[in-house]
């Protein structure tokens, strides 16, 4: 295939996926119902287009919208691109009868890389929606970055363009072209500097897509360029199902001059320790015992411990008794 070439090298591309936005199941059978009118582009993908438009604006280049999907997507893609993209490219899988798209993430990323790479549109920056709605994994942008050999900044919750109005909440610092904020585990955030050439993926709230002016909306349906995918999807190999294992975690190397010492320090085998004590008590006594133990370890003052004992005694109507110490269970 001859991928479409760019008129204006260094364009900004937005990659979007045609998905069922509100999948419907038959309430009587529970089976999915094919629905004609619920397909479209997710908020995240629309946001990606808006970010691409602003970046292109900022840099004075073109924005291009690319979709790997079925022929059905053509009109909606045109409407999406009407918001301001120089053009829209729809890559169909080349499989006759494929009305819903259906390339794997790997396949999609390879097709996109062909289109967006140096022999194609030669895109500087690629913006994708973060995770597609159809139970996606967000891996296409990562794979795409790999194929294009570009750095990646994925799962952004805001992007800042500098003196332009910022997108979302990020602010730019002087040294990098672009600043973004990324969500990390545990509700933490990370500020990332994004180089001029990179693959990004953005969440839906980053930038609501602007409305297309009427003139462009009217033209929209005629503007989409259709490409056929050069590759047939690879034959599907049955997946190997592996047992789940916790992911590996890197630890500092154990201390010690020889192997024996290192093993000892790694396992903690010879260290002093208090053997565990297992007790079985009714809840009030258990509470009292916990307090007593905390007191013994020095976490509680004398007064606090005594008050707690009294409360426990009141609750059970008896003097505090010695706990029955049970043998640890195997």
């Amino acid at each position, binding site marked *: 295939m001859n991928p479409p070439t760019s008129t204006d090298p260094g364009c900004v591309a937005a990659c979007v996926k045609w998905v069922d936005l*509100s999948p*419907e199941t038959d309430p009587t059978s529970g089976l999915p119902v094919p*629905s004609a*009118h*619920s397909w479209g582009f997710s908020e995240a993908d629309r946001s990606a287009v808006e970010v691409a438009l602003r970046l292109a604006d900022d840099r004075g280049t073109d924005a291009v919208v690319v979709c790997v999907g079925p022929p059905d997507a053509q009109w909606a893609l045109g409407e999406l691109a009407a918001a301001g993209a120089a053009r829209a490219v729809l890559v169909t899988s080349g499989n006759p009868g494929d009305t819903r798209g259906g390339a794997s993430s790997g396949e999609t990323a390879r097709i996109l890389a062909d289109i967006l790479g140096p022999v194609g549109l030669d895109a500087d920056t690629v913006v994708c929606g973060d995770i597609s709605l159809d139970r996606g994994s967000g891996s296409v942008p990562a794979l795409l970055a790999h194929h294009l050999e570009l750095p990646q900044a994925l799962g952004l919750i805001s992007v800042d363009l500098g003196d332009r109005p910022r997108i979302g909440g990020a602010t730019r610092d002087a040294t990098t072209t672009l600043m973004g904020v990324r969500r990390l585990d545990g509700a933490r955030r990370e500020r990332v500097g994004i180089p001029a050439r990179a693959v990004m993926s953005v969440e839906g709230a980053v930038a609501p897509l602007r*409305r297309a002016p009427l003139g462009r909306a009217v033209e929209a349906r005629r503007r989409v360029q259709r490409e056929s995918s050069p590759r047939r999807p690879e034959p599907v190999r049955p997946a190997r199902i592996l047992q789940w294992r916790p992911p590996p975690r890197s630890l500092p190397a154990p201390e010690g001059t020889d192997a024996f010492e290192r093993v000892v320090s790694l396992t903690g085998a010879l260290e002093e320790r208090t053997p565990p004590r297992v007790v079985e008590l009714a809840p009030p006594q258990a509470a009292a015992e916990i307090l007593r133990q905390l007191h013994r370890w020095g976490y509680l003052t004398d007064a606090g411990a005594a008050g707690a004992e009294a409360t426990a005694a009141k609750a059970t109507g008896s003097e505090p008794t010695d706990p029955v110490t049970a043998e640890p269970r195997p």
Partner: protein
Amino acid sequence: MISFERRMDSVEFRIHSEAHIVVDDTICRDCSVRGCITACPADLFVPTSDGGILFNYEQCFECGTCYLVCNEEGAISWNYPEGGHGVVFHSS
């Protein structure tokens, strides 16, 4: 009978951030008929204890019933939502 919430859950609404219908409930306080409360098929007009009307635009069918039955000039300012937003029927 299914609950009203279930009933409305069966309908798709592509909600816009701005309300397309605005009810001026200072005018509603003088209204004796209050036809909107029973007539709105989406049950969006809720009388409040202080004699006003609480209106939510999100689950609106854009049918027009409310402005047709409303007898107080100016209580309801009625518009269609921005193109592409609002109710979307699939099997009606």
